[in-house]
């Protein structure tokens, strides 16, 4: 046997993260990912995937970049203005403790990264992708004015606790009303005697939390969380299958510098006022696409049977090549394969019947709405 979809080969020896020894001691199978040794799985991807959908999974996402922007005056108006020149975000509507999805764009409207922006009392806290963080930092240093200071927080670890029972497990061990947070809200809490920033957010489509805490305390907190009956450690393999079911794109696969947010179906990352006013990188290209539509679009595809199609497989409408897969795999929750693809706009309507070429065989597929598996976020005003 040989794997035809081997992971990217890393040039340099991967670095280790604060929980490296913790993962190994728990039986995690470590692989190089985004320049670090990361656990791809513990007991098995499907078991971990299902556990997260039904109970609660603990993910180590310490490879991600945690950045802090501050300075440029005490009232944050100058900081906000400087950041709005770089991101298509409306910071006037971002209240303290609120988290918002945004996009780092180049001048051509291509996506350099996607990120989460949180307003802290002292400035703006950003979480960016691990594989892109060094480029992001270089880009931000170049485009932000000198008055804005950018601090790369390399010390803290980042954990995600995801699943319907995450709130019960986390509330049991956390000082403060962490259960009172709603989706995309965060606050300062204490867990296992250490200060942590916890937000109700994640990358699985489930209710859950992301926890930024000192790296030196990460193992103790991970132990405490995994001692709760609801919680097991989960690897990157299930993280990928969970986010795919949730319809959440993965940077470097489902979008990159060559793709604009409209084609990527991520225009919600451009806030309403910014769509009206423009004045963000790439606006000259993106605003006409918002108005007229893009020639191709990221869509969800559901496959019949059990054979999965992978990234790079071509999509056909009859004999006409109309697109390409950017993610694909078997959905453990649905029991059939699913995929994300960029297809021509005239093939992007829900219900469109297409086919995918897998090693010379055409697999029938249908355009379906995303998420494939409904989100279960704990939104403001939601009934408990």
């Amino acid at each position: 046997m040989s794997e035809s979809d081997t992971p990217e080969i890393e040039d340099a020896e991967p670095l280790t993260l604060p929980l490296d020894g913790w993962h190994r001691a728990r039986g995690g199978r470590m692989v190089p990912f985004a320049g670090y040794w990361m656990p791809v799985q513990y007991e098995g991807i499907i078991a971990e995937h299902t556990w997260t959908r039904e109970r609660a999974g603990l993910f180590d996402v310490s490879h991600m970049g945690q950045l802090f922007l501050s300075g440029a005056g005490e009232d944050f108006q100058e900081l906000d203005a400087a950041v709005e020149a770089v991101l298509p975000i409306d910071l006037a509507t971002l209240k303290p403790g609120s988290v918002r999805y945004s996009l780092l764009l180049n001048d051509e409207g291509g996506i350099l990264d996607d990120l989460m922006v949180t307003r802290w009392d002292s400035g703006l806290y950003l979480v960016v992708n691990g594989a892109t963080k060094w480029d992001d930092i270089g880009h931000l240093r170049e485009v932000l004015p000198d008055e804005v200071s950018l601090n790369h927080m390399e010390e803290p670890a980042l954990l995600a606790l995801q699943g319907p029972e995450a709130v019960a497990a986390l509330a049991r061990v956390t000082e403060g009303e962490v259960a009172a947070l709603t989706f995309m809200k965060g606050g300062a809490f204490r867990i296992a005697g250490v200060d942590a920033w916890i937000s109700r957010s994640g990358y699985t489509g489930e209710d859950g939390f992301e926890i930024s805490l000192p790296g030196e305390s990460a193992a103790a907190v991970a132990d405490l969380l995994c001692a709760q009956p609801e919680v097991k450690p989960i690897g990157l393999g299930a993280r990928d299958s969970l986010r795919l079911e949730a319809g959440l794109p993965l940077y470097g696969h489902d979008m990159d510098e060559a793709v604009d947010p409209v084609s990527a179906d991520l225009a919600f990352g451009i806030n309403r006022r910014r769509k009206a006013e423009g004045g963000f990188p790439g606006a000259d290209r993106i605003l006409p696409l918002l108005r007229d539509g893009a020639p191709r679009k990221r869509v969800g595809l559901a496959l019949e049977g059990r054979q999965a199609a992978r990234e790079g497989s071509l999509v056909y409408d009859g004999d006409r090549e109309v697109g390409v897969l950017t993610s694909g795999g078997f959905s453990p929750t649905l029991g059939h394969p699913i995929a994300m693809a960029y297809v021509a706009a005239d093939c992007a309507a829900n219900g469109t019947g297409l086919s995918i070429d897998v090693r010379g065989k055409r697999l029938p597929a249908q355009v379906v709405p995303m998420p494939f598996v409904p989100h279960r976020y704990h939104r403001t005003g939601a009934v408990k």
Partner: protein
Amino acid sequence: MSRYFTKDHEWIDVSGETGTVGITDYAQSQLGDITFVELPESGASFGAGDTASVVDSVKAASDIYMPVGGTVTAINEALADAPELVNAAAEGDGWLFKVTLADAAELAALMDETAYKAYVAEL
């Protein structure tokens, strides 16, 4: 009956002219949860080292190579509905297909169980 192994982690049980092919327990443990097995058609002929089957796991698709040349005489129909059988019993009920050997002399290039165990221990 004798069992032979390849460096690519296939096994073949040989009885006279007939061989039964599967992947090793080590292979299934490395692949993880298997979700689909693409089997060859009965009657198809392959040379040693040809791709005869593809095993899909949650992570990736993996080619399965013919240990020796031969013609497919039967496939494991149970895998269509239960590909996880390969995880549960890779070297038993999770066999993939049966072949008629083209040239039994090709078996000399394969490992026996002792040699394969030593090979895996080094990985």
